C-alpha cells in the first residue's frame, strides 16, 4: 500500500554510515581471526 503524505526525508547518509560501522566490525573481526589462524 502506497502512503500519500509528506515526502520521506533522505537517509542515504545514514545508510552509508551504518554500512561503514558494519565495515569496521568486519575488518577488525577478520584481522583478529587471521591472527588466530596464524597462531594456531
Amino acid at each position: 500500500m502506497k502512503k500519500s503524505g509528506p515526502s520521506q526525508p533522505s537517509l542515504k547518509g545514514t545508510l552509508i554510515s551504518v554500512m561503514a560501522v558494519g565495515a569496521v566490525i568486519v575488518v577488525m573481526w577478520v584481522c583478529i581471526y587471521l591472527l588466530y589462524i596464524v597462531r594456531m
Partner: protein
Amino acid sequence: MRTGEIAIKDRKVALFNLGFAYSAFLIGTLCGLLQVFIRNDALKLPEWLDYYQILTAHGLLLAIVFTTFFIFAFFQAGMSRTLGAFGPKVRLWNWIGFAVTALGTLLVVVMVVAGQASVLYTFYAPLQAHGLFYVGLALFVIGTWIQGFSLVGHYAVWRRHHKGELSPLFAFMAVATIILWVIACLGVVATVLFQFIPWAFGWTNGINVELSRSLFWYFGHPLVYFWLLPAYMAWYVIVPKIIGGKVFSDSLARLSFVLFILFSIPVGFHHQLTEPGISSFWKFLQTVLTFMVIIPSLITAFSMFATFEIRGRELGGRGLFGWIRKLPWRDVRFTSIFIAMAFFIPGGAGGIINASFQMNEVIHNTLWVVGHFHITVGTPVAMTFFGLTFWLIPNLTGRRFTKSLQKLAFLQIATWSIGMLLMSTAQHLLGLLGAPRRTAYTGYAHDDALAWFDGLLTNHVTMAVGGSILFLSAALLIFIVIQLWWLAPKADEETYEAFPIAESDSSMTPRFLENWKIWIGIAFLLIALAYTIPLSEIIQHAPPGSGRFQTW
C-alpha cells in the same frame, strides 16, 4: 515552575547520588593513575599499599560505584521530570535506597582500604575477602533495588492515572533498565548470600568455584548493559532535543530496549569460554545469544545516524554528508556525547571479537580486555555521563553553565578522548602481544615481555602517558562539577539549564511493547534455557569445595 525544572524536594536525592558518584570518580581515577605508573615500573608503592588493593578500588569505584550512583541520579531526575514530582512515599524510599547503597559502598571501601579485600572487582573465588566485604556488596545491591523499586512505584502510579497510554520514552527506558538490573542481580545475590558469606565467615568449609564464577557472570554481562542503557537513553531521548530534532522512531527505541532485556542476560558464559567446567554446547548456545544482543545496538546506531541526518538536512545540509557540518558542534552537551558514540564503534566491534568463542583465546586475560572496557564503559558510557553532567548539575542547583565553563568542558572531553585513544590503543595492541591484564609490573626477562616496552603504540609507557592525560582530564571534570554545584553564578529565567527531553511520537507505537509481563516472561524462559542444565551440571559434578586463598 519553569519548563524542564524538577521538584525541589526530588532534586536533593539526585544530587546526593551525583555527589557520591563524583567522589568515587575522583578516587577511582587516581587509583588508575597509580596503576599505569606501576605497570611501567616507574612507581613503587609504600609498604602499606598494595597494587591489587588499588586495582580493586579502581574497578569498584569507577565501574560499579560511579556508574550506579550516576545512573540513579539521572533516573530520579528524569522520572521526576517526565512523570511529575515524586509522592512522599516514593521520595522516602528513594532516600532509604540511597542510604543503604551508600552504606554498602562505605563498608566495601573500608574493607578494601583496610587491606582485607584485594580481590578485584570480579571477586573471583577462591580469593577470599573479609566477610564484611560481601555484606557490603549485598547491601549495595539491596539499596539499588530499593531505589529501583521506588522508581517503578512512581511509574506504576503514573500508569494508573493514564490508563491505556504509553508512558513517556524516558520513563519506559528507565523501567526497562531497572528490570534488567533486578533480574541480573539475582545471580550475584545468590552467590554472595549462599556461597561467599557463609564461606567467608567460616560457616562452610569450601566453595564451588565454577558455580560462583558462573553466577557472577550471569550478573556481570547484563551489568555492562546496566551501564550502557542509561547512555543509550541519553542518546535516544536527550541528544535529539539538544540538536533541535525529534526521536527518530519511538517504536524502534522501545523495541531495542526490550531486546536488551531478552538478550543481555543469558550470555554470561562468553566471559568463561576458556573455563573447562562448562561443556562446549552451552558455551556455543550462549555465544549465539550474545550475537543476538548486537541487533539492538545496531538499531541504536541506525537511529542515531537517522536522527542526525534528518536534523542536519532540516538545517540546510545538502549532499550525502553535508548534514554532518550542520550539527551543533559548538555545543559541548552534544559534542561530548557524539565522541562517546564514536568510541563505541571500535568498542562494540572489539566486544564481538571477545565473544567469538575460539577467537577469545587470542585476547583472553590480556591487556586487550582492559583496553576494551575503557572504550566501552570508560568512554561511551562515562563520556555520555560527562555530557549529561554539564547540564544536569546546573539544572538541579539552578546555576549557570557559563561560557568559560563550556570552554573548560571542551578541554575536558578533548583530553579524555586523546588520553583514552593513547591508553586504550596501547592496551589493545599490547594485549595482542600477550601482555597480561590484572598483574602488577611484569618484569619477565623474556624477549616477548621486553617487547612490551618497545615501539610507539605497543608500549607500557604510551599507556602511562594516556593514563596521565586521563587523570588530568578527570581532575578538570571535578573542577567543573564543583563550579556547577556551588560556585557558578545563579541562573535566571533565560539562562536556566532545562532538562532536555525530545519529543517522541508514540501514536504508531504498538502497545505490546510496554507489556512487561511478556518481556519478563520471555527473558526468564531464555535464562532457563541457557542456564538450567549447565548450572545443574556444575553443581552435580562439582569437585570438593575450595579452601580460601589470600594472595596479598
